[in-house]
């Protein structure tokens, strides 16, 4: 394994930092209800983690979400958001009316869960889009 950033210090530190970035992303995603944060920021963090891991590990990266799959994943992420709305439609509410989600908890609780679900969708979409753009810009596809 060669040193992709020139020196061993940078290489190792990036390797070490990746799990922490992901952890921070999870925190930002889940804590977005109570403090500044949310899906977009978490998605950006996850995206950076994936890109960084790819830079450090190359093809052997564990998080090798790449190319076409990332594009499909971005669509699925946004579709999760849309499908929350469709579920509320099916249960007799208006589009994105979280109060009608079929869950046995209080009204604000249902809203909060709905918000979490859509934030998850947003996170997936942002993460994969960053990977798609990165892939496209560095042009390492299908060669």
């Amino acid at each position: 394994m060669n040193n992709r950033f020139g020196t061993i210090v940078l290489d190792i530190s990036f390797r070490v930092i990746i799990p922490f970035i992901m952890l921070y992303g999870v925190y930002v995603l889940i804590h977005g209800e109570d403090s500044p944060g949310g899906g977009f920021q978490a998605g950006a963090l996850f995206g950076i983690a994936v890109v960084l891991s790819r830079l450090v590990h190359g093809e052997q990266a564990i998080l090798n979400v790449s190319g076409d799959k990332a594009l499909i994943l971005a669509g699925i992420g946004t579709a999760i958001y849309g499908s929350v709305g469709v579920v509320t439609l099916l249960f007799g509410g208006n589009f994105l009316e979280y109060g009608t989600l079929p869950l046995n908890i209080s009204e604000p609780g249902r809203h909060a869960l709905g918000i979490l679900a859509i934030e998850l969708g947003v996170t997936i979409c942002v993460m994969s889009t960053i990977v798609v753009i990165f892939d496209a810009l560095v042009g390492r596809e299908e060669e």
Partner: protein
Amino acid sequence: MKEQLPALLIVVPLVTALLSPLVAYFSTRLLRGLHLTALATSFACAVGTLIHALTEGTWHYRFGDWAPPWGIEYVIDPLSGVMAVLISLISVLVLLYAGPFLAEEGWLKKGIYYALYTLLTTGLLGMVITGDVFNLYVFLEISSLAAYALIASGGYKATVAAFRYVLIGTIGASLYLLGVGYLYAVTGSLNMADLAEKLQPLLAANSQAVLIAVLLIMVGMGIKMALFPLHGWLPDAYTYTSPAAIPFISGVMTKVMIYVLLRYCFFIFGAMNGVLPAVLEIVGWLAAAGIILASVMAIAQTDFRRMLAYSSVAQIGYIALGMAIGNYYGLIGAVLHILNHAVMKSCLFLVAGGVKWKTGEHAIAKYAEISRRMPVTMGVFLLGALSMIGIPPTAGFFSKWYLILGALDNQQWLYIVVIIVSSLLNAVYFFRVIEQAYLRKAEGEAKPEETLASVEIAIKNRGPELPYVMLVPIVVLGAGILLLGVCNNVIVTNILHYALPGGGL
């Protein structure tokens, strides 16, 4: 489920577009079917909402069931219903037509192309039926981004044109957003109905901030719809784009922008308030100048698509002129011309794409004898051209007729002169093409510059006419031109009459 129609109108194509890379991964045949179904569903929903709006009055749909000034609502009155029907109809037809152009692509490209196309449709539909000014901006950006990508997919020159369009379009969108910011600063609201109510006292008091907001929104949307001095992005973008996407973009996109302007001027600001008459007067003069100059420019073009692009600028001028005239007939003329021109221009670009498919040529000079090779297509072209010129039984005549009636009512003689002169100019540049296609003989056997590509196309696309999937949309839109012309009275009295501000004044 019936009360959810306005949401379904948007959500069905939106979700289809989102999942289209996934679907494309498994089967491209399924992808095409799915998208056609989704857009057709959207069309059905649009018709349903229009009927509802006509029979039971304006339809308000709340997202998340939040009451309007706090949440986002969709408002479907006859005007937006008509626009939604128009957009979804043309979208279905052009998607049907686009099939053969994409036949040789890989799954990924097909998936992306269909997704972008459907997103463009979704964005335009969302802009048309939304009742919230910021939501309009979001959908404006969805449709713009999709349009940038579709335009750029036409080759390298198209890339440069698309980049220019990105810059200019973003200026337009930012101006619009700043205008919304001004409105928000003085009223604190983003809902259109709420804004209209809160703006009345401010407009009556000639508030400076509202004046700026009016100007910003006018200029922003003027850029987006290619009103005359701001049309710089349009000819290149239309000329170099791939023939599969341009009929939809040219036919509908600028019309939606002018619809937004119409909505702002007559439903939110109220046209007779404060500074609006003066601003509309300026718009009218610009439109008049644009009609004449763009028609002259169109005469000078040698490329069929470029000619159509300049003619688009001129036709946008007609609609803006109707808006500037601003009385009952003027507005009827403007709205009718939105419909007519969307159908006519889509139809003409479909024909242009068809000829390209057949011969690989876009230059007018190469159109000789083409009428013998593709009689049906060129027949529809003849119809479209007559309609653009404004020959009576076709659609184009009637909108011009209403515009002239409106100008007569307001005694704006110059506008009448402009309309008549521009009709003559239209006749000049369309007759050139008609002459080439029908009367001119192909010059001898010597076929100039027979490149490898053109031979390839000629071999592959042999046969008397276009494939059926391409021919059907052309014929349907051609029939639409006739239908809009013959039934214009029915449409005006039964639909458009109720679409105007105040339910027909």
